Every structure is written in structure tokens, then in C-alpha cells.
């Protein structure tokens, strides 16, 4: 259990290349990022927002300590910095609820899951 809950940067054969993986005894969830993709009629391709000031980042909160399935949580973002052909979608600005303006690229830092994600309860 100690080894299984202290994984970091392990490579998954069927995971997307160079994807960040990390878990801890407090947070078993290993998958730390999802790639935003668009179906082009044949295959999934990295999402490039064209005219859409909207990007959705879906982050799996995953399994909590008691083993219950917790919430997949959606963040609506103001901009995606993906380019076609890029394999990662790291630059992302969370939607603040105030504006949908595009922040300068430098400020759109990578947005990773917090180490202890809040589980959203159903309403």
C-alpha cells in the first residue's frame, strides 16, 4: 500500500505520452490532467479554440479515502492555449466568474489539481 500510494511520474503504456501522474496516501487519484480533445470526424485531436472564448477542463477528482467514487468536476475556462498537434494542454486560466477576457499567455499558468481536492456533493 505504501508503494501504491506514493507513485510519482510513472509512465502508463496506454496513457497519453508524458502525462503527469502522482498520488499520495491522502489522495489516491493518480491521473492529474486530462487533455481537451475535439472529434474531427475520425479521431480525437487536441482541442484548438477557434472563435470560442470557452474551454472546458475536466478534472477527475477520483477516488477518495473511503474508496467511494467522487465527483468529476468541470471548470469552465476563459482560454485554452492548445495548438493543433501539441500533446499537452497545460496553459489554462480558470474562469473567475467575473469576466471572459483572455489573460496574457504568461499569466495563464498551468493549472494542476490541488493535492487535496474538494469533493463536490450532489445537490
Amino acid at each position, binding site marked *: 500500500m505504501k508503494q501504491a500510494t506514493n507513485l510519482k511520474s510513472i509512465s502508463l503504456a496506454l496513457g497519453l505520452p508524458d502525462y503527469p501522474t502522482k498520488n499520495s496516501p491522502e489522495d489516491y487519484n493518480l491521473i492529474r490532467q486530462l487533455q481537451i480533445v475535439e472529434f474531427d470526424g475520425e479521431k480525437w485531436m487536441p482541442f484548438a479554440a477557434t472563435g470560442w472564448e470557452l474551454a472546458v477542463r475536466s478534472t*477527475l477528482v477520483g477516488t477518495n479515502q473511503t474508496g467511494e467514487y467522487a465527483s468529476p468536476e468541470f471548470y469552465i475556462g476563459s482560454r485554452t492555449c492548445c495548438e493543433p498537434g501539441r500533446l499537452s494542454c497545460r496553459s489554462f486560466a480558470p474562469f473567475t466568474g467575473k469576466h471572459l477576457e483572455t489573460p496574457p499567455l504568461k499569466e495563464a499558468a498551468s493549472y494542476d489539481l490541488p493535492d487535496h481536492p474538494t469533493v463536490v456533493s450532489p445537490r
Partner: protein
Amino acid sequence: MLHPNDELGREYLAGLRSGLGDKADTMIVKVASYEYWSPTIDSQVAQLSSSGADLFFNAAVTKFASQSIRRAREMGWNVRMIAPSISGSIGEVIRPAGVQNAKGLISALWQKDPNDPRWSNDKDVKDYLKFVKTYLPG
């Protein structure tokens, strides 16, 4: 938004509301849910298409994901659609829905879909398919 009326589906709605914050009430114009024993979800898709929404967050799963993607396009509702990663399987969801109907669908993935032509020359995917063929025939 469309979701199954179970804990998973309600969690998607809660997550969406949480992400939208104060604007959730004004930005989400219509929510429809279905029971997993329903034969079809045509009426839910019809309700949603008449809501005037310009974005369809489709959290329907498995056959309902396929049905709703297909039905929306059959009704001529050319809305931008977002599906969670659970509906991302090309073999299970997209092809039954019709690839033309799913064109422009947005989702999020962490894995290589073995059915996705994007990975058809990938060594790991090839190894996986070989393993399946050898040890899980049929």
C-alpha cells in the same frame, strides 16, 4: 445539460454549477435527466433543443450518449456539444452515434483510445491489441 438521474449524473451537474459559480443560474438554461431504464431519451433532447441553449453539456453515458448525440443532429440541432471523458470511447459511443454526428464534439482524455486511428501506429496500443487478440479472443 443532460445527465443520468443517478449519483454520477448529479455529481456532473454539481461540478458544472461549482465551476460556473454565481453565474450558474443564468448560464445553465435547461437541465434534463433520464433514468437508466428508459428506452430512449428523444423527449429530453427535444426539450433541450427548444431551450435556446448555445452549448450542450451532454453527460449522458454509454448508449444514451450515442442516442443523444445522434438525436440532436437528426433534429437539426447544430449546437456545440461537450461530453465527459466517460463518453470518449470511439468504439462504444462515437461510432454507434455516427461519426458525422459526433464531428466537433469536445471531450477530455488521459488515455490512448485503442479504437482511435490517431494511435493506430503507436507501439503500446499495438501491443495492447495483440495481447487482447491472444488472451481475450472474442
